[in-house]
């Protein structure tokens, strides 16, 4: 197992180097996709399956889809206006001063990077050894999370117990990061200027070509993906997974549905209004539930939420509903990212 991990790490560094030196953008994005997949395999080898699922679903899955749509959109815009790089910028680049500054900037950046790598290598070599039990960070904090997680939070998966109960304020901030990023992408990409007729023509342009092979396979795959996403979401506190990865898988299922059956059919059950309603209801429930548990905790009041017995699904108090809310928010946001990047509207 030791050298398998070593091979993966070397392959990881090679991927990173190829990405930075490859000329073609599409090639570097594909290499970056394989970089994220290798990273999720490494998470499995480092015995943290939660991270593996999340990295595979959110990191490799949705980020790469976003990269590909950006390249497609840039290609489309580029085709409409052939490259208008006027002569002046080409002429400016060739001027000796700019070239000289370019070299200086490149040299400065490489030396800064090398200095940081050297400082961190110096640092890492003095760190406690990898993987032995009595390092400073395996102290009473992690012991209590493992010993008491079932008794205090009811979650069999200690990581979810820690995220949604012991250190819940971080995850509360975390879903706000996703919410505010979605708001910023809405600001940037949702075009409200075009009037309704132009919008109808534009929607027609973006309607995907209906391909019977894709539609029949989507009829089989879409329910399977949705069920798998719901399984991971609902079992967040029992097995690895949870709100983020389950939501990303459901978002991927919605993206498949839009590509196979077109926007008209998807808008029947998922359009801009449902997106807004679902995110606001899920986040406000999350906000209320979390402030209830913070308030009762801080004022030492007894919070009357039953923890249920450890094994079954309806257990561990607030963790299940919170996971469902986070899952819904992540699914809607990933789908919203896809449609905003592709079409500029739900």
């Amino acid at each position: 197992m030791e050298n398998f991990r070593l091979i993966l790490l070397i392959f990881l560094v090679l991927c990173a180097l190829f990405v930075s030196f490859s000329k073609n953008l599409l090639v570097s994005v594909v290499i970056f996709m394989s970089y994220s997949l290798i990273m999720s395999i490494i998470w499995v080898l480092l015995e943290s399956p939660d991270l593996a699922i999340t990295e595979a679903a959110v990191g490799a899955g949705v980020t790469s889809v976003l990269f590909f749509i950006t390249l497609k959109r840039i290609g489309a815009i580029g085709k409409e206006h052939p490259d208008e790089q006027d002569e002046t910028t080409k002429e400016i680049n060739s001027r000796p001063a700019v070239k000289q500054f370019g070299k200086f900037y490149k040299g400065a950046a490489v030396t800064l990077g090398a200095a940081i790598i050297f400082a961190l290598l110096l640092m890492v070599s003095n760190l406690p050894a990898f993987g032995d039990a009595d390092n400073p960070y395996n102290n009473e904090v992690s012991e209590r999370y493992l010993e008491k997680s079932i008794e205090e939070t009811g979650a069999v998966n200690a990581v979810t117990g820690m995220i949604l109960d012991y250190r819940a304020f971080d995850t509360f901030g975390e879903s706000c990061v996703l919410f505010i990023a979605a708001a910023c992408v809405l600001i940037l990409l949702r075009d409200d200027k075009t009037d309704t007729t132009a919008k109808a023509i534009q929607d027609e342009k973006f309607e995907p070509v209906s391909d019977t092979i894709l539609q029949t396979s989507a009829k089989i795959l879409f329910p399977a993906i949705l069920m798998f996403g719901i399984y991971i979401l609902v079992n967040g506190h029992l097995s690895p997974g949870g709100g983020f990865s389950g939501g990303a898988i459901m978002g991927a299922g919605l993206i498949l549905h839009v590509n196979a059956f077109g926007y008209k059919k998807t808008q029947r059950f998922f359009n801009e209004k449902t997106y807004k309603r679902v995110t606001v209801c899920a986040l406000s429930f999350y906000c209320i539930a979390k402030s209830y548990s913070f308030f009762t905790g801080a004022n030492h009041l007894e919070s009357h939420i039953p923890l249920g017995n450890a094994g079954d699904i309806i257990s561990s108090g607030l963790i299940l509903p919170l996971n469902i809310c986070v899952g819904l928010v992540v699914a809607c946001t990933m789908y919203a990212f896809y449609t905003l990047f592709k079409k500029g509207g739900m």
Partner: protein
Amino acid sequence: MEMFRFMIAAIFMFCGVFCMASAVFGMFRFRYVLNRMHTAATADTFGLLLTMIGLIIWKGFGFEALKMIIIVGFFWVSGPVSSHLIARMEVSTNKKLEEECEVKKYGEL
């Protein structure tokens, strides 16, 4: 008995990995996109089936084996469809399709 089962599993896995390796070889051997797509799609799908059968035999029938069967089922539906989509995009966007491979008009099929 244990050794015998392990031997069969090893053979299956070896053939699966060999198929996948041939897919990679095919990718670099052929020049035109559709040929490379052809080798990659078929070899990958079949290689996955063989590897998974090897793992199921090695692991013995249980919950993991069921999961592996579901994985094979999922991949056998989504893999070929995705290569079909890529091939369709290639045919619809490539202007100079005739030079690459002879195309029968719809009437002559």
